[in-house]
């Protein structure tokens, strides 16, 4: 064994390179990316609409207006009723499970790709960073669209329930009236929805991606989907 050239260490890729690869991957996988993103959009749209709808209800009751549907007695002093809390929690769960599931699916069908990239010299960290970038972008754009759709839905529902009064008392900004429950306001809800969607997407994809990246390539490449 003459040629004992020591094996050097693999270099870390510059960030731009990762960014380029991840965007290219999103672009070519566009159809599939849309489906994954739609999962996020749906989850966040549901959550935001339920939440916003609830805030609209509170805001209008605060103002003393009556819903055309609910009688005053039913809802007036209740603020957030247990039913509403339950609804919000449910929608939160649906949203978390839905997003985690669509990200998990999206990563699982790419195990082979992860194994292949490692054969070509990718470091585990690079693989994780790639998924972080892709899912962060998907998460943010999906959640933003979802939050806007959700808000629109809640506004339409509010219009049906309260008519044009809705716009006079629209809970746009946070408020904490002395005699009522604290309100976040629609802007904050949209923001929270975006952040939540992005965090869930990033966790939902980079955790399985990290697990796949840790596997020896032979095992990662064995998985058939």
């Amino acid at each position, binding site marked *: *064994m003459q040629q004992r050239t020591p094996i050097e260490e693999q270099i870390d890729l510059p960030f731009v390179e990762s960014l380029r690869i991840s965007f290219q991957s999103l672009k070519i996988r566009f159809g599939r990316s849309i489906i994954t993103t739609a999962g996020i959009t749906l989850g966040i749209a549901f959550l935001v609409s339920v939440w916003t709808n609830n805030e609209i209800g509170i805001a209008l009751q605060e103002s003393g207006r009556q819903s055309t549907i609910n009688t005053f007695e039913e809802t007036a002093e209740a603020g957030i009723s247990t039913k509403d809390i339950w609804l919000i929690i449910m929608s939160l769960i649906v949203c978390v499970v839905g997003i985690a599931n669509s990200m998990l699916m999206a990563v699982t069908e790419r195990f082979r790709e992860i194994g292949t*990239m490692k054969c070509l010299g990718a470091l585990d960290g690079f693989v994780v960073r790639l998924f972080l970038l892709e899912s962060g972008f998907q998460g943010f754009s999906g959640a933003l669209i979802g939050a806007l759709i959700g808000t629109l839905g809640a506004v339409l529902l509010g219009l049906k329930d309260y008519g044009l009064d809705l716009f006079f008392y629209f809970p746009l900004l946070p408020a904490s009236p002395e005699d009522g429950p604290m309100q976040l306001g629609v802007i904050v809800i949209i923001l929270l929805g975006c952040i939540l969607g992005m965090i869930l997407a990033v966790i939902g994809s980079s955790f399985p991606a990290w697990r796949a990246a840790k596997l020896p390539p032979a095992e990662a490449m064995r998985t058939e989907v």
Partner: protein
Amino acid sequence: MADIVVKTEDVVKEYRMGSNILRALDGINIEINRGEYISLMGPSGSGKSTLFNMIGALDRPTEGRVYIDGQNMSQLSQKQIAAFRCHRVGYIFQSYNLLHVRSAHGNVTLPMIFAGISEKQRNEKAEKLLDMVGLGDRMYHLPDELSGGQRQRVAIARALANDPSIILADEPTANLDTITGREIIDLIKRLNLEQGVTVISATHDLKMLDVSDRIVDIRDGLVERIRNRDEIEIEVGEVGGEGE
């Protein structure tokens, strides 16, 4: 003394499935010389792919050691293993394993991106390699738009991107028809002769026999025998005769 590139010492690989332990490799000892064309042959399930994975650092042996260029692979850090896969070995698989989101050209440049080669250089190199494998006019096609033989050519070009000293091929012709398979074998053999690349190939394909310098027969996770080229040629005749 011959220049040994790959050496395995009592390599054992066990797969654990529930309470069962399957011993896929049961103590493999082989030495492969630089510049050799070696075929690993054996029935399905005999452990060829498992051994391929051990030699290519795609999986870790349960026991025993693999030395490449005299370096004990189990002593390498994660970053060194990545560099090893990137620079020293080119992998070719039965199912091509191209990244389907990247064009032929994009697949060939990826290992060079990992190696930190400049964009200009890697584009030139990718074009040169794709030309060499006969895909000069298909460079920007996605793998889905290529035939099996063309995909395997892309895989070969990609395997050569960082001038590896070893080509590991796991049944590279298994999904191809006879003629295309022959072309792929000739291409690999040409690299072996012209560039002195060591080729280690697992195969069922009898066409591989007459280009091999040695054939390692694997059975039940053990080396059954090792045949030299001169012993092989007679047998190819026999096998050919039997086939007709």
